[in-house]
């Protein structure tokens, strides 16, 4: 068990904390956009980071059979989540803004976009 093992384990713990904070934020934050931010914290911090952690942990675990396969699969899944989640959040926020479903935002940087369409 090398440094990689402990580094990976630490990343997994960070992921658990991010999941907890994401869940808390999803429950307690006031409006849709900030809640979306909390959800994204839960996905990036709580899914992508632990997946990279699993990859490092598997690389560092000498006793594990097929550890390169596990590390590779985790890494690819982590990259996919890392790419897909921001795009999904962006699409959700854009759609909510365009449909004028959220009345609360005090600062509206997308107002000019709405006027264009």
């Amino acid at each position: 068990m090398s440094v990689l093992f402990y580094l990976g384990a630490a990343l997994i713990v960070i992921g658990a904390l991010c999941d907890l904070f994401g869940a808390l934020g999803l429950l307690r934050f006031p409006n849709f956009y900030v809640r979306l931010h909390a959800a994204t914290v839960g996905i990036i911090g709580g899914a992508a980071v632990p997946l990279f952690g699993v990859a490092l942990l598997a690389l560092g675990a000498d006793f594990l059979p097929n550890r390169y396969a596990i590390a590779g699969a985790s890494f690819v899944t982590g990259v996919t989540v890392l790419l897909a989640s921001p795009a999904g959040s962006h699409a959700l926020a854009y759609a909510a803004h365009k449909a004028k479903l959220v009345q609360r935002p005090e600062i509206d940087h997308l107002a000019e976009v709405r006027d264009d369409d």
Partner: protein
Amino acid sequence: MRGKSLITAVIILTFAALMTYAVVSLQVFGEGIGVRPLGEFYLENSYFGDYSARSPEVVTSILWDYRGVDTLFETAVFFLAIIGSLTVFRLTREQEKEVKKAESTPTELTPIVKDVTKVIVVMILAVSASIALHGHLTPGGGFQGGSALAVAPLLIIAAYSKYTLEGHGMDKTRALILRSIGLLGIALVALVPLLSDGFIMQNQPIFPAEVNGQLIGGSLIYYNFFEFLAVGAGFTAVFLLLSIPEEKFKKILGVKK
């Protein structure tokens, strides 16, 4: 409200207590009674021995070798479901053409989503192929890989439009042809053992377990590949049908507003 929450809490706690009791008293995580004779048979005959598929992933080996006919009928159920939805959405040749024409410029999502979709579609193709073609080595297999494959056209439909997918050559007819090739492949691979006095869908002594020193698990890789093709294309056909706009159908059926 409070009473309901209390009842829910009591039910959950009782269930948790019962489960804990069951786990502790049945020694689920204890020594147990070891591998049963049937399990031993499957373990020995899926990887070790001369008459084995040499597949470390015993589940795939059982699914396609020892219970192949069972799996064949499960696959048949899936294809009946696809055929059913194709029948519900059946269209004449002119109507097919009509459905392929975009009424106005279809709304697409923002450039951010579209660019990310481009990257992710390629990744999904690679990952799904890996799930399917590794089916005899790692958990996964044809059906799982095919389901993952079907996400790629679904993402294209969502981020771009159905017409973009059809414009790039993946229309319903092509999807159905691919699906039929997959189904035909499964049937042919299942029938090959009959030629050399084997049983139907039995494969261990007939198909090579290794090619160039690389474990391919006898017929398992062929089954997985064809199932991958068939499931992915089948789902794609259904997704294409489901993404036909309602206005088109209203127009075709002559529904007055």
